[in-house]
């Protein structure tokens, strides 16, 4: 019928009296790798559990492949879930963990052996099939858990913070593997993360969530370059965010945050302006501040400049000689690197003065 794998319509999810997700609408396209991104507690896990059928929605509808599954029990939905903690069966070997679902389905033994071996092969664990989960490393448990879900050929595979329990190095390897696996199998995957760089690197599409509602949906490029709200801009690294004040003289723009204000020599008819640390010019410009912090980060130096509008973060290439803490500097917040945000809803966030 359509190419929509999962459709959430006015989905409301609650724990007792606390509404965790109020009226969510989301279409997940067949075969895509989509990320649910948001800070801890914003309702990512809750949404995922509802799709899997582990949690009953307060109201709303869930469609999978166009069929209403809102009342379908979890074991009949054909949805796979890779738990944050992997949830492997401790008493079974790697092979039997992967075979578990197929045995329940009473598949012929030849088929089970063949499919399990193929699944273990896919995640590179063929040589460890006889080990118990406790005899596997974190990364191996993760892949075993993935294989266990994949052999069931789910319509949708959900992954809850799949990389968060791995160490930094392994995390980068698994990113690549996960993406390759998704391309190879073509299974629709939804993965949850609170790490924006993970979402940007992996996903075809990112759903940015805040307090149970969707703040912005889009490609990684769109989210990174054109965040639509203060929250989204902050999340993708626009660390210097200001409210735009009323222009008294028609000559420029007054921007402020809760510490103070600055006047820019150009016009901006939006509610907020935001700059990444890399977009701030240091060493020349119309504004003056004091360097109060400096951190060396390999290819750049990360400065904190205290100004009349509070602290500004600025990154400068290492080839530029270091500025010492305590020195006065000139800086510019150029129009060219400014992200203009028209986010009336967040206007009240900063109190002037």
């Amino acid at each position, binding site marked *: 019928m359509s190419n929509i794998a999962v459709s959430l319509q006015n989905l409301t999810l609650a724990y007792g009296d606390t509404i965790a997700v109020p009226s969510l609408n989301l279409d997940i396209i067949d075969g895509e790798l989509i990320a649910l991104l948001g800070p801890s507690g914003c309702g990512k896990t809750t949404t995922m559990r509802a799709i899997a059928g582990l949690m009953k929605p307060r109201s709303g509808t869930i469609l999978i492949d166009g069929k209403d599954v809102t009342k379908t029990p979890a074991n009949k939905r054909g949805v796979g*879930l890779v738990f944050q903690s992997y*949830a492997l069966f401790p008493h079974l070997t790697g092979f039997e963990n992967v075979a578990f679902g197929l045995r*329940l389905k009473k598949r012929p033994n030849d088929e089970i052996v063949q499919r399990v071996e193929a699944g273990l092969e896919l995640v590179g664990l063929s040589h460890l099939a006889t080990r118990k989960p406790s005899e596997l490393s974190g990364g191996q448990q993760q892949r075993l858990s993935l294989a266990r879900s994949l052999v069931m050929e789910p319509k949708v595979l959900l992954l809850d913070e799949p990389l968060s329990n791995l160490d930094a190095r392994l995390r980068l390897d698994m990113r690549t593997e996960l993406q390759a696996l998704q391309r190879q199998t073509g299974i629709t995957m939804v993965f949850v993360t609170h790490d924006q760089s993970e979402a940007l690197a992996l996903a075809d599409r990112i759903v940015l969530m805040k307090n149970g509602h969707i703040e912005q949906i889009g490609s990684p490029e769109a989210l990174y370059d054109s965040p639509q709200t203060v929250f989204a801009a902050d999340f993708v690294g626009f660390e210097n965010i200001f409210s735009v004040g009323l222009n008294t003289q028609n000559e420029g723009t007054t921007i402020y945050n809760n510490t103070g204000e600055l006047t820019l020599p150009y016009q901006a008819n939006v509610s907020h302006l935001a700059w990444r640390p890399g977009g701030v010019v240091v060493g020349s410009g119309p504004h003056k501040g004091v360097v109060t912090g400096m951190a060396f980060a390999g290819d750049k130096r990360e400065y904190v400049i205290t100004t009349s509008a509070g602290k500004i973060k600025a990154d400068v290439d290492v080839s530029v000689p270091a500025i010492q803490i305590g020195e006065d500097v000139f800086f510019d917040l150029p129009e060219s690197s400014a992200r203009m945000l028209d986010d009336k809803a967040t206007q009240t966030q900063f109190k002037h003065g």
Partner: protein
Amino acid sequence: MGQTWASRLIIFTTLLFLVGPFIIIIFAGLSAGSSLAFPPDGLSLKWYLAVFEVESFRQSFVLSMFLAVGGTLTALVIGVPAAYAICRYNIPGAETIKIIVAAPIIVPGIIVGLALLRYLVVPLEFTVTLALFLAHTALVLPYAVRVVSASLQNLRTDIEEAAVLLGCNRLQAFTKVILPNIRSGILAAFILGFVTSFNQVPVSLFLSGPGVRTLPIDMLAYMEITYDPSVAALSALLAFLSIGIVFIAEKTLGFSRYV
């Protein structure tokens, strides 16, 4: 140095108190004489063999085995689901339930025995065997719930959800994923229950009737009439049985984790 000597002395004394009676019993049973005495009156194995010839011992041993095995199994059939429910669901008053379940451990056996006699056997005309069976089940139940709860608490809850998403219904998730993982806890509960039931005296004392006695009660009765070393021999044999069971359990399960 002085301190090590003092602590060694304390440990030695403690062990002596614990093991001493057991050693006395073993040797008292090895007596060649005809009355219970220590040190034994010469050495022989005759009383250890004579034990098996006493008809009432044979009968009461069978009853005690039946109560220990049957009562403990019944307690597990009730206790495992109860422990599961207490651990997994937000049951209102779970704490109260735990206390009630523990009551037979806390309330003195004499009172439990008297109560059962007064309210079950006398007015309801329960047979003695049935009353004993119910009493032993109730006595073992707290151990079953506690030991099984302990092993459930060590088990992640999400493996059950994982099983459901792979196609299990709730019952299958329990039997295929939960049960195999708390197997050693259940076995530990069984052994603990068995030993508790088998050694039980006060409750059984009240509920024993003519011709229906558990082994410990039968031994008491025997001693009132015949003061020969066979009771010591039997005690030593039972102690070896208990030690053997606990030893095997420790080797195979790491029993001491649960008790």
